[in-house]
């Protein structure tokens, strides 16, 4: 955690957070499936002030060919932030942070995708953060999961994702940007709700063993909320004519 000094009251005497939410209340989440014309599958998510596009291509031929696997399909993932997505303009070249998140998200999605059905091919997941807020990797993961389903790629489960964290010695759901900067801990979690498996978990900040367990449970509860929104996005697409966002 940044641990910056601040006068911000992260949690008031009524248990209300700096943005008016209760401790177990997520920010506004809106997901729309099928927003892109050319991608095989796509989704757009607004998660708090995050605005993220996900586009999926595949299964398709692998280039360069020597990285193809004769036993299974492979998954590639690119998490990228637009130059205008953050306060200080960001260079378009991928930062080390973006490369790490790309890898973490790939490994969070991999358990859900039936890659073994498509040997020698690749599924590409491209995530573009148009506007960044706290929890952008969780939001990106939620959108990626919907985009994969939208592409019709066989999946074992969705991956739903949200962070839990700690502010003012209290475990909270869905850490926003101010809470990430001034709070005590931020733990993004990705979860397969039906298989009950955690496929993404990271932590910045200090937690006791009890708080750690509480955080995991809080995040899993949040993931189940997100899962409903993901399902609705896919249903809406299926029963509409796919108007874009």
């Amino acid at each position: 955690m940044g641990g910056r000094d601040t006068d911000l009251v992260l949690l008031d005497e009524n248990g209300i957070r700096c943005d008016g939410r209760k401790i177990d209340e997520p920010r506004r989440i809106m997901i729309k499936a099928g927003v892109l014309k050319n991608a095989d599958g796509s989704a757009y998510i607004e998660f708090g002030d995050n605005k993220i596009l996900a586009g999926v291509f595949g299964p398709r031929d692998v280039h360069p060919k020597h990285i193809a696997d004769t036993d299974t399909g492979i998954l590639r993932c690119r998490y990228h932030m637009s130059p205008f997505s953050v306060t200080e303009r960001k260079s378009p070249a991928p930062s080390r942070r973006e490369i790490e998140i790309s890898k973490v998200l790939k490994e969070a999605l991999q358990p859900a995708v039936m890659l073994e059905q498509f040997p020698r091919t690749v599924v590409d997941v491209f995530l573009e953060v148009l506007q960044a807020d706290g929890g952008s990797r969780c939001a990106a993961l939620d959108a990626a999961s919907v985009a994969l389903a939208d592409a019709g790629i066989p999946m074992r489960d969705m991956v739903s994702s949200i962070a839990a964290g700690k502010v003012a010695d209290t475990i909270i759901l869905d850490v926003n940007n101010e809470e990430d900067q001034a709070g005590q801990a931020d733990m993004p979690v990705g979860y397969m709700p039906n298989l009950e498996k955690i496929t993404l978990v990271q932590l910045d900040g200090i937690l006791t063993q009890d708080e750690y367990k509480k955080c995991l449970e809080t995040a899993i509860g949040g993931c189940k909320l997100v899962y409903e929104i993901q399902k609705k996005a896919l249903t809406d697409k299926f029963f509409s004519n796919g108007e874009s966002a």
Partner: protein
Amino acid sequence: MPNLGNTPLIDELKSNQIRDFLEQGKRIDGRAFDEPRSISIEIGVIPKAEGSARVRLGNTEVITGIKVQPDRPFPDLGDKGIFICTAEILPLAHPTAEPGPPQEDVIELARVVDRGIRESGMIDLSKLVLVKDKSVIGIFADNSVIDHDGNLFDACAYSSTAAILSTKIPKWEMQDDVPVKIEDQESDAPITTIPVSVTMGRIGKHIIVDPNMDEWLCLDARITITTNSDGNICALQKGGKDGFTLDQLTKCGETSTSVGAKIREIIKQTKETGQ
């Protein structure tokens, strides 16, 4: 057939069909030769950026975000602010788009969009100086193509222009030689004119406005002409594997003014619609 990695290809059947239609005075999507695709423009789509827009030109879609921040001026241009325009075809925009450093076509795209805005004098850069030779305001227009269905030149140009028109310039004051941002004192960008580019393609002897992807892949040559609010030409770029006759170019010049005027009205009427 060439195997150019990230360039889309077109099959011969579709190509012949496009040419046959043109011979009959028709385009495959039913448009007139000098008719651009439908244009939809939203601004304010990236609220945290100082300006932003999303443009749909047919099925081509672009998002532009504007960042405004203090910077050092270019040497010998100490009395001017900075304007820089970039473009990226996001890999989710097309199966042939690939992540990585920009290729020559994307560099050309960015530079043509940049030049159209810069040479029109759209932004009065002399109004963006904090301390002459030391500190100026920079305006960065970054275009992200999110769906690629041909003619990225115009889609990025309209999106950049609309985003600039929507831009609020924060106020900075110098304190200890460092620019410090004064909260809640922003102003509109200093706009002098509205540049509009019109990209035309030649297939055989036919000139068509705003080619879509299928047409784009059949082009013999293309030209992008940008006009300003006075209807004068302020920038121009020829591309493609063949050339134009003088007559064709003269005609293209006139089309750029007439078609550009209509599109300028659309850009002017853009209001912040929210999402």
